């Protein structure tokens, strides 16, 4: 008998080999299904480009109002430079700041530029000359990008004046005090875009087998529930990471948004985030009898998860009760984590708290899914 000779290590290797057989099968099944192949990577690529351009497209038409109280050569020159870009279209010249509200409310202009009466005087005496930009914060990403461009034009003009100190631009965003610019939207896509498809993919993984009757065949094998879970989760997590990578590359090299943080930390965060998403997906999958059911549940869940993620509207502006709900939303913390690592160059200590809710969600949903595999009432 070789029974006694078997060690824990050999058992573990056998266990891993069994699990790997399932991982291999899952990946084969994934890439061999033509329907799967198309949803795997094409949408990530398309959406990233679409969002990238969607966020900047409006910059070719930025309607603005101006309150020029200076009415000087300097202010005229500055405004001429703005108009000269072909992007900014002056919709109205207002007499006072009080008139700005109506125009922004109605959406006729995206922003208003207010130049104080002492603008030229300050420039000539060598003082700093502040101008104010009032932005429509509802259209946050476009407004942010527009403000950035105005800032650049103003700085350029300031330099052309020679020795004078630069003109300062004072920004104020209405309706959204924490203006989210394109730069903050795009890195969020690294988490958000892959999330939907990872969720859908994992939600379909078990449901497909149930629908096609192969799940019973899997359950009668000696594969343990943990092995089935791991075998099914790993390919989904890999796909999620590949999608995130595609989006990351587009953002970094196509849209040239600089990455300030560590790639290692970013990927550690993405693995945690994707695992939480896969956990939710697998739980949906274990509950669903058919692929259609799994898809329906996924879409029911995706909208609230997206809305409550803080991607488009800041979480702290939400009602208290909704803010509490966002704690179970891995997307919220995934987006926050990616943004802070990507843009702020956050280190692990800065984003450690983002990991906690994601780990908790993964630690609950993944074992729950495994339990549901066998115990879901047929």
């Amino acid at each position, binding site marked *: 008998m070789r*029974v006694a000779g078997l060690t824990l290590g050999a058992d573990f290797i*056998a266990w891993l080999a069994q699990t790997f057989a399932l991982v291999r*099968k899952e990946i*084969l099944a994934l890439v061999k299904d033509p329907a799967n192949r198309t949803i795997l990577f094409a949408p990530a690529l398309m959406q990233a480009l679409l969002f990238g351009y969607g966020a900047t497209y409006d910059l070719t038409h930025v309607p603005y109002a101006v309150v020029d109280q200076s009415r000087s050569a300097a202010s005229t020159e500055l405004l001429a430079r703005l108009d000269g870009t072909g992007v900014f279209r002056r919709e109205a010249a207002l007499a006072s700041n009080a008139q700005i509200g109506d125009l922004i409310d109605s959406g006729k202009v995206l922003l208003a530029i207010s130049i104080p009466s002492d603008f030229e005087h300050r420039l000539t005496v060598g003082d700093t000359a502040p101008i104010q930009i009032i932005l429509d914060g509802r259209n946050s990403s476009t407004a942010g990008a527009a403000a950035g461009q105005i800032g650049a034009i103003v700085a350029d003009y300031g330099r052309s004046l020679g020795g004078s100190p630069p003109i300062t631009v004072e920004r104020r965003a209405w309706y959204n005090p924490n203006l989210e610019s394109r730069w903050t939207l795009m890195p969020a896509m690294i988490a958000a875009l892959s999330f939907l498809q990872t969720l859908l993919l994992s939600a379909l993984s078990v449901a497909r087998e149930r629908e096609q009757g192969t799940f019973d*065949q899997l359950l*009668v094998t*000696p594969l*343990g529930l943990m092995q089935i879970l791991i075998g099914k989760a790993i390919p989904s997590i890999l796909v999620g990471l590949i999608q995130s990578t595609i989006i990351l590359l587009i953002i970094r090299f196509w849209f040239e948004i600089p990455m300030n943080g560590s790639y290692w930390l970013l990927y550690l965060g993405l693995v945690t985030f994707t695992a939480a998403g896969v956990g939710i997906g697998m739980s949906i999958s274990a509950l669903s009898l058919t692929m259609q059911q799994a898809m329906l549940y996924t879409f029911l869940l995706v909208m609230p998860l997206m809305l409550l993620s803080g991607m488009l509207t800041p979480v702290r502006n939400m009602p208290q009760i909704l803010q509490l709900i966002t704690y179970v939303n891995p997307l919220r913390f995934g987006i926050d984590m990616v943004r802070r690592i990507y843009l702020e160059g956050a280190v692990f200590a800065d984003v450690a708290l983002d990991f906690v809710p994601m780990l908790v969600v993964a630690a609950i949903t993944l074992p729950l899914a495994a339990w549901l595999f066998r115990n879901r009432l047929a």
Partner: protein
Amino acid sequence: MLLLREHENEPAQAADDANTNKEDGDRYGTAETASPSAGERDGPVIVVRDLVRKFGDFTAVASTSFDVQRGEIFGLLGPNGAGKTTTFRMLCGLLPATSGHLEVAGVDLRTARAKARARIGYVSQKFALYGNLSVRENLEFFAGAYGLRGERKRERVKAVIAQFDLDASAQSGILPVGYKQRLAMAAGLLHEPDILFLDEPTSGIDPLARRAFWRTITSLAQGGVTIIITTHFMEEAEYCDRIAIQDAGELLALGTPAEVREQAGDDASDMNEAFIAIVEQNRARQTNEKVAA
């Protein structure tokens, strides 16, 4: 067939029993714990006592008891909705019983450690392998899932491909029905199970393929493999060592085909008529009871 061939290669002087025991030892001696079959080699391989399964108010299987001996071909027969698939799924551990006792190779497969499942093979009613994988990929996956590795895995995959005359590179999903069924059998036998569960394996395949299939089953049983099979082809019941007839969840008859024919009465010349007679007698009795009540 393969098993038969293996037996032919064994030394001729070995008695049949010793032969199968030896093979058993070879096959499972490497398992982590002593094979549970060791203690009950002479006892029944499957024990079912007062098994009940309810879905809400509906009783799919009413108090059912039977034993299956090692090397036996045991047929579960019944009209559609009789509860045979429910019984079958409970035996395989795919469905929990509402009450009653159930043992397959000494354990309840539903709660048993995963390794116990390595001793059974399962061929489901509809094609339940991965349609977009090739024959070889399917077999390699199931070999891996059953814990076969390296040389042994290659050998077994090669052996079943030869045994069932399969085209390794063909895509499984577009195979003709008969080949799909062969592939399913091949996958179920890769790990040389002690017990093979077959859920209506012959529905939809032609008579020639069916005869070949039964030849395989018979030789497996001769090699000591216990076969549990559900079918609605009554002539196939004759190939079974013993059969159980179920209707509306109840076990109506249990015994060898000859015994069951006898139970059906004089006018049952073949199994088809015996089956109809038994089911109808029972249904008439139930109607009478209802009228009386």
